[in-house]
């Protein structure tokens, strides 16, 4: 790898780091307050959730509408590790980071394991029916969490240490996007897209659709689990009801408003729609009504989402380096492979 390529692939990370330092500077100067920082943290978590949902819905074409279920599993998994297994508030500062990371990984793994379990029925069910099963899954997880006494049942879990900082969230967000970008825009990822576009054709072409569908569910669930872990350590309080279908539909809205099948869309959708209700706070009672109206108008006039199927340059891999064909067919019909002799 030469220097130029390294620099090129590193500049998105540089943007994130610059964003972080800019925020910290503004916080020091006094233009930003803690509230802004928290909104940014939620935006980062929502970007992770939306991007992972996009892997399942936007790129693999399976309809998962219970993504908050994975998030709750991750949140509870991580919170149990940091709060109950290790007494997170009373351990030396040096041990906090490993405990936090362990919690996130455990949360992610729990969610991923369940993700595989949910991926299995996706072999048998298609489209809307699969969507309903994932919805039911999210609600069952919530109902089960409400029943378990040691983790607070319906009252929720309190006393979770406040480990998540903006830096951690931005780090995991960048890592997620980097991994998803490299996964999706790779030969492996083309299998996902093939399944989305035509499952039978993909099967005929020798793609093991079962394997790829379960992989997609598993990876998305893992990321959602980690995001859930981060979420738990922002608020220091989690309760089963905060991971209801309303939350899942929030992520769906972020994803489709941003544009399905586009990681840039996930970033834009999640960031904009997390900030928008906060910006609209001056409307007080009318806030959510206006937000909903904006959403409907966006969907009516830009049905493909804000970034429908397109990516910013740094969110994709240069096509020529990997494939002959573009990932998204062009509209003007000039879709010939670069190497053909026609």
């Amino acid at each position, binding site marked *: 790898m030469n220097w130029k390529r390294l620099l090129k692939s590193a500049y998105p990370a540089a943007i994130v780091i610059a964003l972080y330092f800019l925020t910290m500077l503004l916080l020091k100067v006094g233009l930003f307050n803690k509230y802004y920082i928290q909104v940014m943290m939620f935006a980062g978590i929502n970007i992770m959730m939306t991007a992972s949902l996009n892997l399942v819905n936007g790129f693999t074409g399976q309809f998962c509408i219970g993504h908050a279920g994975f998030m709750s599993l991750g949140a509870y998994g991580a919170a149990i590790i940091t709060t109950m297994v290790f007494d997170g508030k009373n351990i030396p500062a040096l041990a906090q980071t490993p405990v936090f990371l362990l919690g996130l990984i455990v949360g992610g793994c729990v969610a991923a394991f369940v993700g595989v379990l949910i991926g299995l029925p996706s072999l048998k069910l298609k489209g809307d029916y699969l969507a*309903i*099963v994932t919805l039911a899954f999210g609600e069952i997880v919530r109902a089960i969490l409400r*029943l378990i006494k040691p983790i607070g049942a319906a009252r929720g879990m309190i006393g979770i240490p406040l480990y998540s900082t903006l830096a951690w969230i931005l780090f995991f967000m960048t890592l997620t996007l980097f991994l998803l970008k490299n996964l999706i825009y790779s030969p492996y990822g083309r299998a996902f897209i093939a399944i989305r576009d035509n499952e*039978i054709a993909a099967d005929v072409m020798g793609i093991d659709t079962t394997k790829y569908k379960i992989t997609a569910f598993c990876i998305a669930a893992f990321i959602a689990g980690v995001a859930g872990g981060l979420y738990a350590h922002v608020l220091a309080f989690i309760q089963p009801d905060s991971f209801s279908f309303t939350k899942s539909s929030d992520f769906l809205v972020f994803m489709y408003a941003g544009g399905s099948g586009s990681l840039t869309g996930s970033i834009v959708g999640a960031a904009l729609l997390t900030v928008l209700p906060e910006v609209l706070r001056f409307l007080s009672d009318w806030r959510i009504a206006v937000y909903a109206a904006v959403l409907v108008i966006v969907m009516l006039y830009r049905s493909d989402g804000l970034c429908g199927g397109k990516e910013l340059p740094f969110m994709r891999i240069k096509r020529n380096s990997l494939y002959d064909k573009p990932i998204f067919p062009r509209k003007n019909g000039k879709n010939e492979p670069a190497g053909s002799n026609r």
Partner: protein
Amino acid sequence: MCRLRFTPAGTSPSSANKPQLCSTRRLEAFQLSTILQYLIYGLQLGSVYALLALGYTMVYGIVGMINFAHGDFLMIGALGTFFIAKLFTSFNVDGTYPMLIVGVIILMAMLGTGGIGVGVEAIAYRPLRNKPRMIALITAVGVSMFLENFPRALSFIGPNPRSFPTLFKVVRYSFLGASITSTQIIMITLAAVVMVGLYFLVNKTKIGSQMRAVSMDKDAAALMGINVNRVISLTFFIGGALAAVAGICYASVYPQVEVYMGAWLGTKSFIAAVLGGIGDIRGAMLGGFIMGVSEIFATAVNSTLGYAVGFIILIVILLVKPAGIMGKLTKEKV
């Protein structure tokens, strides 16, 4: 956003700190009269689910989209009834209304909610009819949020729950040890009449055969001279009207109306529609009653279980019959 969780009446978890009472309650659950009592509650809740599920299933069968805003039509129906009943307050005798006035109130609520259904379809869903289905679904989520939060922001409605007026004189009958009120009898009967009426409308009338034709093939139906837009508008109108009846049924027995009441009822009725086989009218009725009865029985054991049992039944049934009880699996053609 907070959405209130829905718990049916008669399920107060007061037995938690009284272990002795709890065990006797468990024993009571096996007595015939108690089972009958649960069955009555189940039928009553089931008729609400079935009426809503019919709306979901008809819209799905004809347009092919999941109308997530359908639960909110129920809320509009119930809130609308509240305000219409206020208009007729001069007819109020001893806290109840004469039968004729009740009929007028219900009819007005049905017409109004149906009209709102038609309006929502024309504004939000019609432009997206040829777009991918998920787009319409997200729009439906947006519409649902709007329908909940717009009335919430209006000063004369607001977020506070209101007590629903008693429309009928409440008379309590005893039947094999179980008690049933006149409201419950009237509401279950009303739901049954509406459902039978709908079944005949779809299967025996000309407009019904138009609806079935559109649900089979929109383009072919249009070629045969059927006005597809009109049929779809009518479907939304009927869905809205049924939701209004469901709202009145629900609010008469659990007499509280507020703007978020439709959210969970909507989700559960949708589950009921899928359970029965979405797109099939008999399936929606069956699914609704299965959901209602099983929910009441499970709630008698544990209130959280009562909430989850519908979803568990759904997953089990879908794993055995992937298209629901009545649904037919369509083979994908290459």
